[in-house]
């Protein structure tokens, strides 16, 4: 090897389940190319079995994450932002590889970091906004608090590989839910790298699971799995969304429609998005001696 011309080490893009980076159990892949038809990477073509494994991991992780203190969850989200900031160049490079201009790539990474900070700050406040003490007429103390809905499946936006992904994951996990996410099919690189950021940020294994693969093949599972409590989708024509909503009815899943969201807009971040994957629990206790 001539001095000064080092052979770079290319990254293997893998999926993220239960805090580990396996290849898809199916052994399948698809090839990601840039606009000039040059191969960027072989991407795992995740299977239904991968999804089921991820749901098991998410359900197991829910027990701990849902009762982690709000303060801790806030700090962990902040830590994710810190890690992303430190690796910003890597994400900018990946976005450029996938066809973004440098300026837009930088902006997307910065917006993603800022979005994490935004939700980190909400971790111990949304409850206060949305909870209530209810003045019942009988002699009882009665209050309503929010609790996480459970395991959430997310079909992440196809057009926004990083910001769209982060904008969906953050409000779900800051509220104590766990999730299984299908990354953008067109723009999957940042999703895999973001899993590495999560892995370095004290996010317990299984809280966020990220799969890559074909949307057409996996959507049905994301919508119909009986141990998933809510499904989020961000793309699709009316027929696609109708299909998701029909399948979700099997176990009365909460169906969250984020189609046509401009992820770059300020309106794409607000506490009502946290509330979408929260349940209201009301507790009664008699007042007396």
């Amino acid at each position, binding site marked *: 090897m001539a001095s000064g011309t080092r052979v770079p080490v290319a990254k293997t893009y893998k999926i993220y389940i239960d805090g580990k980076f396996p290849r898809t159990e199916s052994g399948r892949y698809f090839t990601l190319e840039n606009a000039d038809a040059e191969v960027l990477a072989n991407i795992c073509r995740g299977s239904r079995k991968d999804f089921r494994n991820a749901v098991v991991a998410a359900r197991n992780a829910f027990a701990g994450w849902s009762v982690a203190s709000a303060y801790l969850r806030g700090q962990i989200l902040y830590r994710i932002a810190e890690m992303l900031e430190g690796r910003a160049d890597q994400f900018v490079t990946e976005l450029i590889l996938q066809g973004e201009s440098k300026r837009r790539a930088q902006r997307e990474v910065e917006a993603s970091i800022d979005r994490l900070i935004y939700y980190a700050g909400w971790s111990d406040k949304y409850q206060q*906004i949305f909870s*209530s003490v*209810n003045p019942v007429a009988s002699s009882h103390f009665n209050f*309503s608090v929010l609790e996480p809905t*459970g395991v959430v499946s997310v079909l992440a936006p196809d057009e926004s590989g990083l910001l769209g992904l982060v904008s969906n994951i953050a409000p779900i996990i800051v509220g104590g839910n766990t999730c299984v996410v299908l990354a953008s099919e067109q723009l999957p690189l940042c999703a895999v790298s973001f899993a590495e950021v999560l892995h370095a940020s004290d996010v317990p294994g299984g809280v966020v699971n990220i799969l890559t693969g074909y949307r057409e093949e996996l959507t049905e599972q994301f919508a119909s799995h009986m141990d998933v409590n809510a499904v989020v989708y961000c793309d699709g024509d009316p027929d696609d969304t109708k299909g998701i909503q*029909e399948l979700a009815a099997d176990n*009365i899943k909460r169906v969250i429609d984020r189609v046509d969201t401009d992820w770059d807009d300020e309106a794409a971040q607000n506490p009502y998005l946290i509330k979408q994957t929260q349940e*209201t629990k*009301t507790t009664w*206790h008699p007042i007396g001696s």
Partner: protein
Amino acid sequence: MVKESSKLAFNDGWQYAPAPESTDHFEVDNQYGLFIGGDFIEPANGRYFETINPATEETLSSVALASATDVDRAVKAARKAYNGPWSKMSAADRGKYIFRIARILQERAREFAAIESLDGGKPIRESRDIDVPLSAAHFFYYAGWADKLEYAFPGRKSRSLGVAGQVIPWNFPLLMASWKIAPALACGNTVVLKPAETTPLTAMKLAEVIRDAGLPPGVVNIVTGAGETGAAIVNHPDVDKIAFTGSTEVGRLIQRAIAGTGKKYTLELGGKAANIIFADAAIDQAVEGIVNGIFFNQGHVCCAGSRLFVQESVAEEVVQKLKDRMETLIVGDPLDKNTDIGAINSATQLETIESYLRLGQEEGAEMHQSGCSVPDRGYWCRPTIFTGVSQSNRIVQEEIFGPVLAIQTFRTLEEGLSKANNTPYGLSGGIWTDKGAKIFKMTQSVRAGVIWANTFNKFDPTSPFGGYKESGVGREGGMHGLDAYVRLEV
């Protein structure tokens, strides 16, 4: 062992004289049309069906069978009222109309209570003390929200949705109508509501109240009928929101039916609540809580405490005391003020319950029923408990919707919790212990929307109600109940 002398024996030497509520102070018409556009009108196809008193099997009245044509008329009337006076009216005036409904309901409370018991079979004590006053309170509560919605949604503006289609069950006919109509109107929507086919009368009486309160025609429309009428509401293209209370099975069908339509929806579905008794509970109070949890309203309660979990060390005592207490429960004439348990709502529901009683025994559980007498005519079920059941028994997993309790035991808090949460439902739960820390541990860990600690089956208009998991989507009651009837804008 519990001593023999501790048994309650209300029927020995103490007889209750009949104390029936009078029925001569109000009138039930022989026939009711559909309440559409402010008038009672004939159904398009001229068809009617009878509603009976389940305690006597006598016909009370007949009500219109609304077809899809009638539902379309109702939706058109609701749309016209929405585009017309209702959305143009000031929010404060909208609230005043809703206040009026509350006041008239209070004035006519005795009549409503009696009709509710006649048509549905529930004891007059419950319709008089719970259903009717809570209905009036619900209208009164939401009336006040009408001009204060800006305070309910920080950082957002709320907008009404349009026409709300609402389908309600037969267990709390007037109360469910109130839960549905009051928040819908307060948020500026108009309504098409269908009461259950076995209990239409108080809804028709409520239509009279709404007319007398002077609401603009078409703001509330009430159409009677069975499943097909409900389906016509759910599938109507000009309905913006569906609110349904009923079984999880039908809830699933509705969620599927409106997929892709963009209709907003709330579903308040079935339940199989755990009522958990710890050894350190006040046992006598807990026994009262068990009785209230499962025998209130004949067990026709989605949030009924139908799975009892008793800590092993007190299980024998609790079950014995429960059996003793069951012997004192009076099953009979719903109009009698002494009655604890009224009539099963319909022959169909009685068949369902009895099939579960057979099933429970076939599955190997031990059945015990109170020894009370029941009237010869009408639909009745004695208070029933099953012991020796396992987690997988169908009487433990499925909603029976009758006065039937499945009893299990547990040793540790963790075991009780994991058994309690082993259900696809998540509507309600009960905890009985004198230890505060344990209450909070349990109330936090039971996955259900309403938790009663050292009490059970309490309701209030300010208190949000609704389920986790397959018990439904959304909340009714309280500030949280407003969400279902608005869309938020920046």
